[in-house]
């Protein structure tokens, strides 16, 4: 199939429909509006349902209902809207239902702004909703990767019966790039015999639920969830290593920030400074093992984020004190320049060579 040029948000919508998503519940918020707008145009043509909910809270609870009835279902929003969805996300994780949540994130806190930001790292990887639960979180850096991961997200959600989040900053949502829709590798999916679709008088009622008033039973439920998360950690970690050979400094960056960092790495290379990149593609599970591949030449790590420093916590955990961990970030919708990253690297290694 030939590549086509699409805007990120629309490409994400198209990828979802191609992945078999037939139900979308959303609410307007910038900079993700082209996703519900695309779905309102295209979902009915695919035999599905687009519904604009009265709020993000209602939208995620509609997702909860649709997922419980066995549908492939998605919602999308942006940072403050995702904050409102946390209640429903926790219930969906607790009831072990599959769904896909897209966050085209913007600056915060509060109403924040509408420019690109990565300040929702904590929100997406540390919950936000109550209880011990995890989301599989994909962070694409290109539109091609965004459509690939959206399609993969539905497979992974059904496979693990778990909500999956795809997080892109506003640049992913708003820019255009050539893309190609490729079928994701099909997983062996379990049947949805737990779905509430009516007993038809042929079986005992199914109950979709996250309530457990018996403490011992609730603990057992949490242990079962943790066992699932352990398997996800073993099987689903994704990352890219870039220019790691003989690296003096290794940068960790994800999403569009990683592309800026690659430009900085090229500029540094011209000056004879070797810098590597670890690019997490899954924010959870975080690619801890990537840090075991850091060469002996590396003297320090640098986290570059569009936030005041959130992923750096995971980098420190992954580094286990093996390297000093530095930080460079811009936030509020300000975007780091390659040159600023170059300067930061030079500062770390003690000036230009």
């Amino acid at each position: 199939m030939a590549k086509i040029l699409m805007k990120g948000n629309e490409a994400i919508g198209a990828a979802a429909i191609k992945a078999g998503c037939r139900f979308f519940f959303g609410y307007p918020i910038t900079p993700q509006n082209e996703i519900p707008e695309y779905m309102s145009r295209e979902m009915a043509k695919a035999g599905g349902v687009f519904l604009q909910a009265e709020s993000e809270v209602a939208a995620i609870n509609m997702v909860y209902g649709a997922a419980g009835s066995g549908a492939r279902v998605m919602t999308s929003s942006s940072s403050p809207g995702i904050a409102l969805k946390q209640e429903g996300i926790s219930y969906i994780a607790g009831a072990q239902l599959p769904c896909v949540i897209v966050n085209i994130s913007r600056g915060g806190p509060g109403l924040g702004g509408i420019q690109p930001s990565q300040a929702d790292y904590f929100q997406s990887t540390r919950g936000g909703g109550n209880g011990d639960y995890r989301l599989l979180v994909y962070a694409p850096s290109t539109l091609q990767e965004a459509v690939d991961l959206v399609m993969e997200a539905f497979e992974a959600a059904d496979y693990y019966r778990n909500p999956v989040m795809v997080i892109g900053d506003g640049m992913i949502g708003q820019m255009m790039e050539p893309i190609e829709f490729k079928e994701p590798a099909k997983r062996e999916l379990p049947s949805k015999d737990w779905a509430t679709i009516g007993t038809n008088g042929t079986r005992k009622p199914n109950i979709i639920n996250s309530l457990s008033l018996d403490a011992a039973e609730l603990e057992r439920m949490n242990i079962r969830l943790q066992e699932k998360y352990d398997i996800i950690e073993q099987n689903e970690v994704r990352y890219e290593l870039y220019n790691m050979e003989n690296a003096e400094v290794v940068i960790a960056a994800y999403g569009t920030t990683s592309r800026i960092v690659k430009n900085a790495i090229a500029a540094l290379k011209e000056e004879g400074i070797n810098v590597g990149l670890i690019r997490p593609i899954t924010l959870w599970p975080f690619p801890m093992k990537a840090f075991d591949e850091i060469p002996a030449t590396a003297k320090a790590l640098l986290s570059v984020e569009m936030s005041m420093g959130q992923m750096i916590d995971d980098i420190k955990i992954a580094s286990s004190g093996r390297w000093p961990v530095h930080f460079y970030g811009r936030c509020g919708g300000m975007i780091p320049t390659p040159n600023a990253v170059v300067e930061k690297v030079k500062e770390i290694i003690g000036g230009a060579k």
Partner: protein
Amino acid sequence: MTVVFKRTEGLTEKPYHYCPGCTHGIIHRLVGEVLEELGVLGKSIGVAPVGCSVLAYDYFNCDMHEAAHGRAPAVATGVKRVLPDQVVFTYQGDGDLASIGTAEIVHAAHRGEKITTIFVNNAIYGMTGGQMAPTTLIGQKATTSPYGRDAAHAGMPLRISEMLATITGAVFVERVSVDTPANIRKTKKAIKKAFEVQIEGKGFGIVEVLSTCPTNWGLTPTEAIKWLQDNMIPYYPLGNFRTPEEVK
């Protein structure tokens, strides 16, 4: 031997956890009987609330989906949009529906969602121990209105049926009570109609059932029934608030 009375197929055999004298049991039974009589048990999906009837999913003998507090109409919307030919209902109390869930119930009605809502109004938060609800009457004591509800401080009790009857998509809105055998029969009739308008694809139906809470009202079951008759029915008049010509 002739069987003259038996458990409805619409309910499971699980014993209720409800307090003595609570009318949830009667209302559960009426819903179960209606589902059985309409022959839709096998194609029904119920959505349980948060509140005293949080465990309703254990009692109704059909597929059930537990919702977050107040969100049952949104969850039911998701279910119904996936399964438009199935019968979907919510069972909610007044803390759930009239307070935290007002947006969800208003917009489910506004969209004309083809679902049925059973709204049990006992003028108090039961499960959490008797706090004031939007439906608590003026002067009524609750654990968060210990001197009695004061209109200047907390507003007047919210009349949900009257409010929803202003919405075009709500094609059947009726308030009933389970205080007497005659009213219990009327309640069953209203519940049946609220399911029929859904099954016929006409829109959203809601039945508000005035109910007692002897435990949190601090009354015996018989005193509670009398209190409902003397205090709730005058403020929350029984009757039909909306049945447009096309659904009659």
